[in-house]
């Protein structure tokens, strides 16, 4: 760790923080501190992102040419399956909740830790066990079923390492159940006194909604995957059509979780974006309660639309109509958020620091992704677009252009708080812009080529599509650079970065009122909250907050946290 340099305005820097109170391996691997567990997760998911990213580069490399010349079709099947399984179960689903959520939720609600600290650690270990199994499956040759494991191929006919992969996904599911359970109980029971629900930061609302989905949806896929394992190993088949079983039943049960799962991936991102936009517009989020309730609405409605993945499978047409209309409805809460964020920017004092660039990128890319989802919700259009690259482009726009941009934005935004270091801001701006350009260059051509008829999961395609695939691969290379850069400058900042002040951006959440990095127990005394969320434009003496300036000076107002002064701060101060 670099030496502590006294900087004007800093306080409490000689006191131990959660990172440096002990450097032993045991103190890290047996920690129950939510902040350390968040860091453990951050390192782990980054490793999985690299694995999934390598698979992605392999896919793009193969698709440069119309023939299956780099890999055989069977190998290609295993590569895209690996990409999907690793990215979804081991990167996207844990990403924001397990890293930023774990770190920030107790800080944002004024608690000393999550409700069940040891369960938190167990969740990480289960995740690591799951990841080990997944890597084992990959090393042994992977699976060729796709991340969706459709029966009866996965349960009967596939020759891949399906059982190991299924157990890996099963365990990863339990890791997310434990995390979700922890967050739910924490947010219900451990908010600081005075912190009513409608004073919570929107990140907490979003995490709450995510946790509801994690808790209620994941067990369904857990048992479904176990049914496939049972069918494959013990021949206890209920999806086997040779026995009169219905493979579509598997799809129903699978998508009953996997559709809400995509909301697990995006909802925390919405929370991060709310925080970033509020901070860098110096304004309260417009329509705060609408944005809060829209998170819950997405969590609820998201459970009613799974059939839109199955329009072309032979499910009942009437059921399809119901799913179609409900899929249109579920877009509404997301749209509410986008409108409210835009309204927040209006007449805000906007500054474009790097987290804000990621947030802006998110707004544009998620809008495109969300709108193309509506195309797919239309049953008639979906008949043409199902299983084409249009679908691939749609979900990459929302999951990569959306969730990953939000994740990166959040990591940048809270990096000073988590590590106590400032990263190189110009490099971050370049990385954000490169990512945005590279992303669009990669995935926009895929909308076109999908509409023109290119099916997904194919290594071989007609020559007329090659132009679009070449464009896409070129973009992917740029995107890879955009992702590599944060890896470089963020790691560099750990060693050589300037020491971060407590509140470099001038945020108003409770997390900005502890040290950077926080002490092991977060708060010395339990704070008593008497103010509303996002009070950016109010100050004790009536003056407006300054714009965020990255200096050593802390420029947020100090809040009194003792019970004695609670009487001096009536609600709404």
């Amino acid at each position, binding site marked *: 760790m670099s030496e502590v340099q006294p900087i004007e305005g800093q306080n409490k820097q000689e006191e131990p923080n959660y990172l440096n109170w002990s450097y032993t391996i045991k103190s890290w691997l047996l920690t129950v501190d939510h902040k350390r567990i968040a860091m453990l997760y951050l390192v782990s998911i980054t490793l999985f992102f690299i694995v999934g990213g390598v698979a992605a580069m392999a896919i793009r490399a193969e698709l440069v040419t119309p023939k299956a010349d780099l890999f055989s079709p069977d190998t290609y099947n295993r590569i895209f399956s690996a990409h999907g399984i690793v990215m979804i179960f081991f990167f996207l689903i844990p990403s924001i909740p397990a890293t930023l959520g774990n770190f920030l939720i107790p800080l944002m609600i004024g608690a000393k830790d999550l409700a069940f600290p040891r369960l938190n650690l167990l969740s990480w270990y289960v995740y690591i066990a799951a990841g080990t199994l997944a890597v084992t499956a990959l090393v042994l040759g992977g699976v060729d079923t796709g991340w969706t494991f459709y029966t009866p191929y996965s349960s009967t006919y596939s020759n891949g390492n399906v059982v190991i992969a299924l157990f890996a996904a099963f365990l990863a599911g339990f890791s997310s159940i434990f995390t979700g359970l922890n967050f739910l109980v924490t947010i219900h029971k451990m908010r600081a*006194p*005075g912190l009513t629900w409608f004073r919570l930061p929107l990140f907490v609302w979003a995490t709450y909604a995510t946790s509801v989905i994690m808790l209620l949806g994941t067990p369904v896929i857990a048992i479904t995957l176990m049914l496939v394992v049972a069918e494959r190993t013990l021949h206890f088949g209920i999806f086997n059509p040779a026995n*009169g079983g219905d493979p579509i039943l598997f799809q129903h049960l699978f998508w009953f979780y996997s559709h809400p799962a995509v909301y697990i991936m995006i909802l925390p991102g919405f929370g991060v974006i709310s925080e970033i936009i509020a901070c860098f517009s110096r304004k309260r989020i417009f329509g705060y309660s609408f944005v809060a309730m829209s998170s819950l609405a997405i969590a609820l409605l998201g459970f*009613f639309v799974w059939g839109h993945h199955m329009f072309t499978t032979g499910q009942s047409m009437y059921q399809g109509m119901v799913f179609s209309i409900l899929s249109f409805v579920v877009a509404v809460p997301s749209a509410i958020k986008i409108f409210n964020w835009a309204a927040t920017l209006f007449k805000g004092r906007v500054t474009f620091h790097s987290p804000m660039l990621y947030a802006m990128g998110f707004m544009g890319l998620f809008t495109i992704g969300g709108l193309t989802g509506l195309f797919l919700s239309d049953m008639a259009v979906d008949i043409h677009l199902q299983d084409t690259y249009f679908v691939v482009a749609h979900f990459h726009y929302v999951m990569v252009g959306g969730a990953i941009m939000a994740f990166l934005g959040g990591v940048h935004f809270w990096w000073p708080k988590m590590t106590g270091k400032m990263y190189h801001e110009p490099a971050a701006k370049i990385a954000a812009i490169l990512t945005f350009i590279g992303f669009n260059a990669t995935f926009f051509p895929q909308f076109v080529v999908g509409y023109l008829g290119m099916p997904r999961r194919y290594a071989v395609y007609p020559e007329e599509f090659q132009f679009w695939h070449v464009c896409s691969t070129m973009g992917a290379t740029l995107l890879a650079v955009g992702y590599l850069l944060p890896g470089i400058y963020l790691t560099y900042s750990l060693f050589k970065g300037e020491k971060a002040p407590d509140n470099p951006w001038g945020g108003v959440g409770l997390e900005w009122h502890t040290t950077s990095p926080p002490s092991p127990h977060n708060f010395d005394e*339990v704070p*008593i909250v008497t103010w509303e969320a996002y009070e950016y434009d109010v100050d004790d003496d009536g003056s407006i907050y300054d714009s965020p300036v990255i200096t050593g000076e802390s420029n947020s107002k100090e809040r009194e946290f003792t019970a004695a002064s609670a009487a001096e701060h009536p609600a709404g101060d």
Partner: protein
Amino acid sequence: MSEHTEIAVHGEYQEHHEHHYTPTSHFLVVFAFLIVMLIATVAAAFVDLQKIIPIPGMNIIVMLAIAISKATAVVLVFMEVRKGTRLIWLWAGAGFFWFLMMLGILFDYFTRTGVTPV
């Protein structure tokens, strides 16, 4: 999810009071109810209830009703939910409600037309 401001009783020692418990008689009454319901459900299984009350699926309705009443008794009394906080009620209720959402899967099978391999 209280809307009221709760100030922590910080520094005051919470006097631990005797934890209220359910009297044994309540448990025995519920147990008797469960056994009676068990006998009822077994007996009902042998009778074609559709002949008595001509609603299609009457047997299934009765079985479900009996099972739900037994489960409710266990949840409220044995699991002490009737003494629980609003939050406990929320979670107990949410769990069973969410299960109902999966019934949408059945809707597909009831409305399929044409040849389907099931």
